[in-house]
């Protein structure tokens, strides 16, 4: 009898070409996604005069530098150059490119699944740390650096030491106004941003099973903010229903064979995890960050912590964070005025996120300006079909095109120094959204609530008598 295996074990052995004596595996890569930021890797390839090994398994996406406004009116020269470089590299190497004119354009971690490029049982790499998103489908998906991108381009393989398996089990029903974003911020606040370093996290439990694919993607996306390069969820009927009929998903007999294979992709009942964490869904509140690290988060009805009360040598960092954020310990986090809001990103730019935000904003006005950037052109079209764009526009927010936008501050969408932004993104790092920008991470519904009140506020009272 073979020993019980984790989902990680199964995915790993399914891709292992060889295991070196030093414990490093050479793994086969099924999908490689590249973006404008991959220019360093293509430069390494040209320096070697090398070709892309498997252009059919490589896909290019314009997202990191994609302008979200006035695309036809000319763009800043450095942005145009980044996009042209990717276009040229894609042409040279015969790589299919989702460029700004493509009807499926969008953020790489939104369109991979949307196009059916992301499937259970695949190994997926991208030069972006939020590649863990694709693990929501039961894929082995992880972010890599430029040297590794060049390696995957050249060989369609990657050297990687197998991480330890960690399981986060969430059971029970989430309360109204509580979403996958809050689950993620909750566990990262508990375990710290280094809490899952060296681990691949598998999420399981009834709460996870009841999440939509959008919610599962949000959760896996944020794994890296807790230190885990990999997040994953065993595929089930929700996964299969999402994928069926997607453009690049298997069809006909291939689909049937795929389903048979995918049903095996789950941890065996007695599989042993290196680390096990359990969370009761009922204990999770709408959560918001107060500092400059995703672990610096509290329930929206809590007070900003006193740095002196923090353990594990976290006091100094907390004090510096409060200083940067312009906040005072001991005061409630709710009621903190915001200057602007942002809804979008690979974390929370999907249709369900826009529905959740619009449910709060419907018939209400935003007291502060803000941007809504759908995760892809298809999400945008779907939202417009549902009339969600009108709700955002009528509330006074700007409805723009898709891209990484204000999450990463590369395309010109920035938060000014000293300004405070309620944001549905993934990193509240110092300077992430612009030099001196003060970012508060929260769910799209919470961002919408902050827009309505002009301050950080509990979304729950705003949801009474409306469908969330």
């Amino acid at each position, binding site marked *: 009898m073979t020993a019980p295996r984790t989902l990680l074990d199964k995915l790993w052995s399914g891709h292992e070409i060889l295991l070196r004596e030093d414990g490093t595996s050479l793994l086969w890569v099924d999908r490689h996604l590249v973006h404008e930021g991959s220019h360093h890797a293509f430069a390494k390839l040209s320096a070697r005069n090398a070709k892309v090994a498997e252009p059919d398994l490589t896909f290019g996406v314009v997202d990191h530098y994609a302008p979200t406004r006035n695309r036809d009116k000319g763009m800043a020269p450095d942005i145009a150059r980044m996009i042209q470089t990717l276009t040229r590299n894609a042409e040279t190497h015969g790589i299919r490119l989702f460029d700004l004119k493509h009807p499926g354009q969008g953020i790489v971690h939104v369109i991979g699944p949307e196009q059916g490029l992301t499937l259970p049982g695949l190994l997926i790499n991208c030069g972006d740390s939020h590649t863990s998103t694709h693990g929501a489908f039961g894929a082995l998906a992880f972010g890599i650096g430029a040297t590794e991108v060049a390696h995957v381009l050249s060989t369609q393989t990657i050297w990687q030491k197998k991480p330890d398996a960690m399981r986060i089990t969430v059971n029970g029903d989430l309360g109204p106004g509580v979403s996958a974003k809050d689950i993620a911020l909750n566990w990262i606040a508990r375990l710290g941003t280094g809490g899952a370093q060296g681990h691949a996290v598998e999420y399981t439990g009834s709460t996870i099973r009841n999440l939509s694919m959008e919610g599962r993607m949000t959760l896996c996306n944020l794994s890296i903010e807790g230190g885990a390069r990999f997040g994953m969820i065993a595929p089930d009927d929700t996964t299969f229903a999402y994928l069926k009929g997607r453009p690049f998903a298997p069809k006909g007999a291939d689909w049937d064979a795929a389903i048979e294979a995918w049903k095996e992709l789950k941890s065996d009942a007695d599989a042993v995890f290196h680390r096990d964490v359990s969370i009761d869904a009922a204990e999770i509140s709408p959560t918001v960050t107060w500092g400059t690290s995703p672990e610096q988060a509290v329930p929206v009805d809590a007070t900003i912590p006193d740095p002196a009360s923090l353990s594990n040598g976290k006091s100094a960092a907390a004090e510096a964070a409060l200083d940067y954020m312009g906040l005072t310990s001991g005061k409630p986090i709710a009621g903190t005025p915001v200057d602007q809001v942002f809804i979008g990103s690979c974390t929370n730019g999907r249709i369900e996120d826009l529905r959740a935000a619009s449910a709060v904003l419907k018939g209400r006005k935003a007291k502060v300006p803000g941007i809504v950037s759908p995760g892809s052109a298809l999400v945008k079209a779907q939202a417009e079909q549902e009339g969600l764009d009108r709700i955002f526009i009528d509330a006074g927010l700007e409805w723009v095109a898709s891209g990484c936008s204000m999450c990463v501050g590369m395309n010109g969408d920035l938060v000014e120094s000293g300004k405070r932004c309620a944001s549905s993104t993934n*990193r509240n790092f110092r300077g992430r959204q612009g030099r001196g920008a003060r970012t508060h991470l929260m769910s799209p519904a919470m961002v919408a609530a902050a827009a309505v009140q002009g301050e950080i506020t509990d979304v729950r009272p705003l949801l009474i008598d409306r469908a969330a």
Partner: protein
Amino acid sequence: MAGWRTHTGTALLLPLDNVDTDQLIPARFMSTPRSEGYGKYLLHDLRHDEEGVQNPDFPLNTCPDASILVAGRNFGSGSSREAAVYALVDAGIRAVIAPSFGDIFASNAVNNGLLPARVDEDATSTLHAALANNPSEVTIDLDTGTVTLGQHTLAFALQNNWRTKLINGWDDIDLTLQHADAIRSFRDSRHSTDGWAWPATPN
């Protein structure tokens, strides 16, 4: 990339936790070709005020010759941008010593000959105390996995494969191409048993 076994240089204390990759190099500098050098962007917004004037008190500005950084926990957390490593390497940094590192940062570091040396709490306290007032000469030995500062010799942790790679200065692509037959046969076997794993042709 040249390999190395030992390095002796000036170690500088950067007593900060969570020095993430957005701080190591703000995104706005990342469209620059590497050939222009990334050293000037290292920790740019911490080292300079909003007018671009150097903050004279910031550690790296007081000791531009440092080749070893001693930092707090979770160094290099955040994005996969290898530019964070380029900024360190181009500024002359050969090793970062910290209690923990972002996983992707650490592997990017090794791919560029930069040592991410992980030390325990005791060693961290010893190093932070010794460097609190002044930078000091430190010797790093990859074979023994030790950092020596004055009379202190402290152990650091490093994955074995990373140690080998740093010492040999290996280029992974060349190594991998030696396994071309194994890769081809894996590919062919996956293609015949798991044909669904290849992208379908969109309608």
